[in-house]
């Protein structure tokens, strides 16, 4: 309402200048037609209305073509005097107020808001609203734009951040708005009530703000999926209570990963891969089983403590936060007291990267053999941590972004994780080695649906011919080469999830596939499932007869 009314206000403010301009033209025109001109052929000539209007128009705008059609008489010149001294200032006044109004901030904002609304209204694809533009949302946007299943709309109250977004060249483009996302009006403007709006993601660092936005979003649209980031204790419960569909709870994710690592390095590696890492079990994936020292204030520390207690691992908890003087956490005594000399691992998990750096440096100084896990809050400092040869780095923003991305574009990853968590160590190792053998050590994780948008030909084919996974993947071109694809999961239309389906699994319309692959194999796979004749050859091993020559009667 605020922005709409400023346009009305604009029109209302233009009333006086426009009326002044109108009168400043009308009065001289009438006077000029009334005043006698010079005598031509014995008759006094009066100006016609057209001539008078013409004259006033070019005089008022200071163009000044001169006295036409005849030279003026003295009474006419007196009127011209009045004309000049009234119309010219009237013009300046009108133009001046117009320009002043155009530069008014509220008016410019109103125009921007209207542009934004129009762009959102014209989106012809399903879209996602992202509230807050930061490292996490930037990464999320890049990921989502690659898949291009949804368009994206961004809201942030900070104009610098939105300007930064505008300088990035995103394809497809991203409508953005500088506004407070926690107001109903802003959310409505960004199209939350549109049936095309499928998700809203709030990635602010401030939990209170995330909560505010989520509540409003739930009230405005009951069907929308809400993803919200939670940073503090109890935050996630709160969010779930008000109807948030997926809470991006980073500490919980990290804790789950450490829990997994204590059980099996292979599970840990698979989880890291799904959440954005490499698929290669190295020495740094083997967490030591000795004593742990957790340096963290607040919720992260508590969550980790629970995990260690569950796994019966000795753990010393040091509550380090900004309140404690710097001397303390760079003081060797402090760490020796905590028993660092016989500890095997230290977790530097404060919310300040400088403190984390200092913790690592001091701890390594006392016990060089320590396994070091660090929480990274600002992604720019990545180089610093890797320089210190830390064994594990958890980048919060990256974890948050990939978790949100998985929920939106690859929801089956959650089924997959749930499934493999119950596996024994050996089975996990086989699963992982199977992927790395068939694909490579840095496979892409893709989820695709068998529908007419993503697998056009296959979607039609499965209606009349039974197709199994093996037919598509094993030796499709009869040249002895398999596609570098490992199917991790298959989800039926009815919701049934099949973990690691074998090659005899048949495919149906509406199935979703989760698989690990390489770029060339993915391209080949897409070609097969989207081209009818290609698919026919892959399945039957021969070209389909498209026509019969008349002399070769079949």
């Amino acid at each position, binding site marked *: 309402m605020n922005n*709409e*009314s400023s346009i*009305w*206000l*604009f*029109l*209302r*403010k*233009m*009333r006086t200048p*426009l*009326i002044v301009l*109108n*009168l400043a033209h*009308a009065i001289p*025109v*009438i006077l000029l*037609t009334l005043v006698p001109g010079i005598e031509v052929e014995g008759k006094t000539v009066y100006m*016609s*209305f*057209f001539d008078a209007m013409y004259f006033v128009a070019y005089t008022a705008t200071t163009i000044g073509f001169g006295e036409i059609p005849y030279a003026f008489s003295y009474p006419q010149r007196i009127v011209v005097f009045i004309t000049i001294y009234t119309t010219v200032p009237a013009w300046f006044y009108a133009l001046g107020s117009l320009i002043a109004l155009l530069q008014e901030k509220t008016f410019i904002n109103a125009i921007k808001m209207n542009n934004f609304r129009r762009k959102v209204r014209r989106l012809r694809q399903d879209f996602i609203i992202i509230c807050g533009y930061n490292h996490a949302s930037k990464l999320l946007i890049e990921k989502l734009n690659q898949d291009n299943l949804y368009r994206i709309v961004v809201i942030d109250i900070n104009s610098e951040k939105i300007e930064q977004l505008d300088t990035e060249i995103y394809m497809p483009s991203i409508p953005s708005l500088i506004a407070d996302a926690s107001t109903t009006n802003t959310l409505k403007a960004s199209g939350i009530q549109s049936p095309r709006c499928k998700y809203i993601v709030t990635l602010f660092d401030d939990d209170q703000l995330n909560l505010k936005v989520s509540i409003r979003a739930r009230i405005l649209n009951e069907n929308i999926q809400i993803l919200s980031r939670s940073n503090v204790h109890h935050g996630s419960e709160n969010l779930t209570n008000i109807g948030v569909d997926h809470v991006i709870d980073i500490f919980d994710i990290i804790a789950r990963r450490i829990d997994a690592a204590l059980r099996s390095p292979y599970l840990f590696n698979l989880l890291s891969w799904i959440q954005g890492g490499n698929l290669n079990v190295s020495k740094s994936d083997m967490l030591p089983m000795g004593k742990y020292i957790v340096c963290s204030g607040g919720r992260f520390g508590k969550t980790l403590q629970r995990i260690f207690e569950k796994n019966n691992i000795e753990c010393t908890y040091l509550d380090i936060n900004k309140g404690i003087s710097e001397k303390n956490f760079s003081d060797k005594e402090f760490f020796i007291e905590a028993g660092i000399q016989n500890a095997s691992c230290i977790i530097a998990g404060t919310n300040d990267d400088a403190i984390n750096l200092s913790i690592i440096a001091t701890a390594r100084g006392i016990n060089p053999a320590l396994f070091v896990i660090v929480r990274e809050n600002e992604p720019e400092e990545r180089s610093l941590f890797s320089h210190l040869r830390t064994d594990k780095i958890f980048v919060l923003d990256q974890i948050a972004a990939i978790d949100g991305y998985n929920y939106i574009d690859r929801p089956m990853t959650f089924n997959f994780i749930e499934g493999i968590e119950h596996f024994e160590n050996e089975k996990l190792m086989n699963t992982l080695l199977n992927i790395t053998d068939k694909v490579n050590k840095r496979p892409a994780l893709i989820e695709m649906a068998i529908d007419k948008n993503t697998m056009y030909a296959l979607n039609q084919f499965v209606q009349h011919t039974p197709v199994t996974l093996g037919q598509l993947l094993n030796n499709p071109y009869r040249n002895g080469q398999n596609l570098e694809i490992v199917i991790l999961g298959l989800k039926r239309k009815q919701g049934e999830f099949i973990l690691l389906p074998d090659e005899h699994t048949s495919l149906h319309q509406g199935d979703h596939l989760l698989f690990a692959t390489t770029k060339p194999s993915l391209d080949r796979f897409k070609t097969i499932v989207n081209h009818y004749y290609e698919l026919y050859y892959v399945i039957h091993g021969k070209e389909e007869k498209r026509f019969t020559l008349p002399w070769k009667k079949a």
Partner: protein
Amino acid sequence: MNSEKVISGFFIILALTLNFGFVVGDIDVIEYHSVYELVATIVVNLIATIMKLGDKTQTGSVLLATSFVADLQLIAAASVWGIVNMTSVMTPELFTIVVSLATGALVANIISVSLFVGETLLLKR
């Protein structure tokens, strides 16, 4: 008393009365219709239009629309008159067009005034 209401009411009603004054009389007799009255009608109509700008109520929009109609008709009338004067001689047949266009504007102005009065009567304060 609302001074904004007084001023806008003044112009809206003046537009109607001037328009009526111009139109009244035999339709094809030039002497009955003063050119200055037509000019005054146009000027006052334009002011009335501007006064109605920026009113975001439902009636406000309809008022603005009637004003635009009146402006269009009056300017068309004036243009016909001016063009005929510049190019040929005014005949009663041609002059009928001018006055009938202005009569059309009169209808728009009547609607405008009745809306204006009606809205005012509806207000209970």
